């Protein structure tokens, strides 16, 4: 699979990473190189093999339905780049 500049532009938008127009082509080439290399996995026979979904087989922790967190807005807002009162603030969104 070969990626072109348009593919990279689309992926970069999905990932919300600004990539300069001039960097799209070289990045496409680099990503094509990596993707080409991982494509050797096609050699592996995985018919009937289940994808790994958990590394270690165990029972998940079941949390009790108890309120024991929250109640401290300053704790969650402490590092906010922009806040107004107890709200996070971001550039205006037009829906």
């Amino acid at each position: 699979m070969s990626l072109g500049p348009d593919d990279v532009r689309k992926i970069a938008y999905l990932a919300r990473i600004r990539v300069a127009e001039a960097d799209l082509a070289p990045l496409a080439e680099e990503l094509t190189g990596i993707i080409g290399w991982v494509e050797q996995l096609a050699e592996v026979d995985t018919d009937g093999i289940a994808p790994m979904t958990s590394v270690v087989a165990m029972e998940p922790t079941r949390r009790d339905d108890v309120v024991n967190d929250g109640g401290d807005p300053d704790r969650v807002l402490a590092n906010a780049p922009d806040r107004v009162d107890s709200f996070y603030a971001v550039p205006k969104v037009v829906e």
Partner: protein
Amino acid sequence: MTYVITGESGDWEVVVGLEVHAQVISRAKLFSGAAADFGGAPNDHVSLVDAAMPGMLPVINWVCVEQAVRTGLGLKAQINTHSVFERKNYFYADLPQGYQISQFEEPIVGEGTVVLDMADGSERRIGIERLHMEQDAGKSMHDQDPSRTFVDLNRSGVCLMEIVSKPDIRSPEEAGAYVRKLRSILRYLGTCDGNMEEGSLRADVNVSVRPVGSDELRTRAEIKNVNSVRFVMQAIEHEAERQIDVYEAGGEVIQETRHYDANAGTTRASRAKEFAHDYRYFPDPDLLPVVLTDDEVAAIKAALPELPDEKRERFIADYGLSTYDAVVLVAERETADFFEAVAKGRDGKQAANWISNELFGALNKLDLDITDSPISAEALGKLLDLIAADTISGRAAKAVFQAMLDAPGSDPVAIVAEKGLTQITDTGAIEAAVDQVIADNPEQAQDVRDGNDKAIGWFTGQVMQATKGKANPKAVNDLLRAKLRG
């Protein structure tokens, strides 16, 4: 009850499927220990997990899992004892993680059914495609500041159930009945409070149209976040008309997200860049699959309350109710409980009539729920006992009922005593009154003797008036007939 829209080119029908988002009743959120309550000061019900601080990890609230299973059982659906949480990746200001933890390929609940009792007495079965658990997002406020949007994460991470119907719905009425029935079932189960104003229950409505007689599935539009039964019905109506107009003008309906504008009575396309959505679902590596044993499912099933459909059947069988009355009475669990408390050991039909007619009418006027009724089930039961024992007449009973409404918590027996409404069953007293009225009205008496039946009614009224309504009307009637007709 087919719903057909006549267009210029012919008749059309609608094909509707609903995705209902129901907030699970739980104290804490799905993956954190912050409160799941509605409201609260901004960012107060927020843990470090909900704010997606670096290194924070989700741990499942097991009660939410049980609630989802309970709901699945209530929808007569397949319970999947192995289900998987996945990440749905997209960026938005009120989605702190940059992904929503949801279920995708392996939901906790599979196919089920909801039975609708339509107004014309017919029954419709709407298929459930699946139910899955997911996190709610936070809330963005766009109108607080000229240049900024404010974000409150109180809702972020609250557990929702997304209940997806099959595209089995064929009219706005069915859609409305479906949402009401679903809400009823959820409230019976105690898994969602069904409060649409607070957003505990909201629907995404998928609408497409097709010519009547066709069985194709055409491109659908998704109307997002509709928050009342009325709006669901209106949105379908408007969207169907819009789509028919598009087709009849030679156009094509495009798959898109739309919003219902209740003021304008129209749907409009969302401005979001649809093409950019690629959610990149994959199993959340921070979580393990949700695994339930058959015994756990069986235990939840054994503890399920009686649901509206079963209750309706039982009311019909045990209390002799009509289907219509039974459907009305079981819609809300509180109403059904009220009815049973009144009807137990009494005439069920009579109890149903008093509740459906007198009580509902009164509550409607007072704008009260049955849980806030000024007349308790016990008090209404006593009133019915007074009628059954012939202590008071039906007419007097209505007066007592009104007095009970006026003085919440009052006792009908006391009211009857106080107002002297006890029915006169002493035939001697009634006979005296009858004789007096006949004596006072010789012309009318002759009328009756001459065969005018209507005039008997007039005499009955006179006697009732003379006894201030306390005489047993049947006894009066019998005496009048005996005396005037021989």
